[in-house]
């Protein structure tokens, strides 16, 4: 169904995980409290957890199967591509829409927040994110032409990419193979030439790798990366001095003060800068911090509702741990609370319920205003640092 490119093989297995991977039943021996076991999650990442974690993951598999049935039933009822017609571009006047379209749009938003089943993810992401549209504006051979044109070129970006390939989710049964490395390399190198301002930024290796695992075809993963960087996220997140990322961090700090004042005040008193933990979340889009299905549930909403979702989810992680955070005394304790929480967050609904029901509305236009407000301060701070460093170099020369 989604075949076509030459990067199939082993990954077909993942598509049929429902049938092939038996429900994991921890053995008698591992039932002892806090016994840690290693197991594979829905996307074949090896994770470690205790018996409770294994059980949670089994429940998640069950929920995913259920969501699959819901989606298939809707397809049968409304037609195979019903969600494409339900997509309401923000530029369109809502009053000019047919009632049925609006109903579908509301259904779709709710449905996506409950999760897109893994086997439908490639198709739904590709259309709803705008990747399909982006691809349709260039000749069909764009990706293959790009890849063959840059194959033997060596740039600082390609060197860094080569350095990072074996360091990207080492141990994953497909990503960490010569075939997986080659595929990831083509996507990252290809993109580094498509946008030379971004080139290659560490962090994109994890994002592109997870896109490959989900999309299953390399070319579609490439277009997802393109739409993500060019349309979904704020610009300059990954360019020279990560200025976009600095802006997001400042916006996030203000949101935390507003939405979780007790936590913000306590962390402030500890002189804990939340960027210490959040930077990685925003650059890797949680792929390095949360279990794979939980990350991908965030991405489901990210591709449909936009980058504000990252704020909701980041706030939710703090909110979920409020009581524990309020009794921390050291920076290290804060980090440990947060890392333990994210690392074992196997139930996506636990996180997303807080993100969408307990945090309160996040309005895109307000966020955009906040970003505009922070930009000059970020630019000034970055400039100041560069000037200071340059003056140090001048001193040395003189």
């Amino acid at each position, binding site marked *: 169904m989604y075949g076509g490119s030459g990067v199939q093989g082993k990954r077909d297995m993942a598509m049929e995980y429902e049938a092939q991977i038996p429900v994991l039943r921890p053995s008698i021996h591992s039932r002892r409290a806090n016994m840690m076991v290693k197991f594979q999650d829905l996307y074949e990442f090896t994770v470690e957890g205790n018996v409770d974690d294994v059980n949670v993951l089994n429940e998640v598999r069950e929920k995913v199967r259920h969501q699959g049935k819901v989606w298939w039933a809707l397809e049968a009822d409304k037609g195979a591509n019903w969600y494409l017609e339900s997509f309401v571009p923000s530029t369109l006047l809502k009053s000019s829409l047919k009632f049925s379209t609006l109903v579908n749009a509301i259904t779709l938003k709710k449905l996506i927040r409950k999760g897109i089943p893994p086997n439908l993810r490639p198709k739904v992401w590709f259309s709803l994110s705008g990747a399909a549209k982006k691809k349709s504006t260039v000749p069909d051979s764009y990706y293959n032409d790009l890849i063959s044109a840059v194959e033997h070129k060596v740039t600082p970006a390609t060197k*860094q990419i080569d*350095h990072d390939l074996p360091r990207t989710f080492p141990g994953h049964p497909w990503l960490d193979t010569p075939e997986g490395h080659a595929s990831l390399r083509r996507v990252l190198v290809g993109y580094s030439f498509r946008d030379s301002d971004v080139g290659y930024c560490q962090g994109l290796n994890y994002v592109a790798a997870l896109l490959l695992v989900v999309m299953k075809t390399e070319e579609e993963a490439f277009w997802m990366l393109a739409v993500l960087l060019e349309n979904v996220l704020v610009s300059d997140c990954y360019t020279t001095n990560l200025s976009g990322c600095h802006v997001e961090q400042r916006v996030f700090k203000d949101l935390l003060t507003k939405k979780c004042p007790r936590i913000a005040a306590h962390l402030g008193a500890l002189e804990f*800068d939340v960027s210490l933990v959040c930077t990685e979340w925003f650059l890797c889009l949680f792929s390095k911090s949360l279990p794979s299905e939980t990350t991908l549930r965030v991405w489901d909403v990210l591709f449909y509702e936009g980058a504000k979702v990252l704020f909701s989810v980041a706030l939710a992680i703090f909110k979920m741990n409020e009581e524990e955070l309020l009794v921390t005394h050291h*920076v*290290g304790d804060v980090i440990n609370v947060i890392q333990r929480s994210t690392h074992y967050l196997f139930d996506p609904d636990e996180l997303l319920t807080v993100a969408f029901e307990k945090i309160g509305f996040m309005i895109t236009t307000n966020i955009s205003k906040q970003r505009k407000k922070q930009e000059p301060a970020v630019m000034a701070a970055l400039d100041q640092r560069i000037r200071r460093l340059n003056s140090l170099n001048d001193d040395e020369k003189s």
Partner: protein
Amino acid sequence: MASSANKNINAKLVLLGDVGAGKSSLVLRFVKGQFVEFQESTIGAAFFSQTVAVNDATVKFEIWDTAGQERYHSLAPMYYRGAAAAIIVYDITNQASFDRAKKWVQELQAQGNPNMVMALAGNKADMLDGRAVAPEDAQTYAQENGLFFLETSAKTAANVNEIFYEIAKRLPRLQQTPNPSGMVLVDRPTERANSASCCS
């Protein structure tokens, strides 16, 4: 400081250095006693803690292992702000990484805490065949700039514990303790904490 009761000190320590110099490997060796050929690339920074006992005091290091790629340097101030110590790491087989290390030293001298204990680590000391930076050069540079210098190997573990221990000894609040003898690593992280930096 006459009291012989245990002193517990928290010390923020930051690792800085060129990409691929082996910052994360040094930390992994120190914190978990392990070495892996392909260490996950660090984004932003990774956090670890490890406790070192020096005589009657224990120093709990809160370690920030930062990302090496050039564009991440704009984030560095967040990690070195308020740090009691820094290890600046270069790769002895790569001259450019030594030049980069010097720039970090300059930046820390200008911006960091004036009492910061700074160590220069020439890592990958096991790869003698590829050596590009002479230890004498690094030693001279370190002396001139008030750093202490060790060549380390995260792979063989050579000088890894030593460099952290040496830092612990030099922390201002420990200065008055008499000649330290030997080092004990305590507070090994639990199984659960051990896996906290795994990929998702």
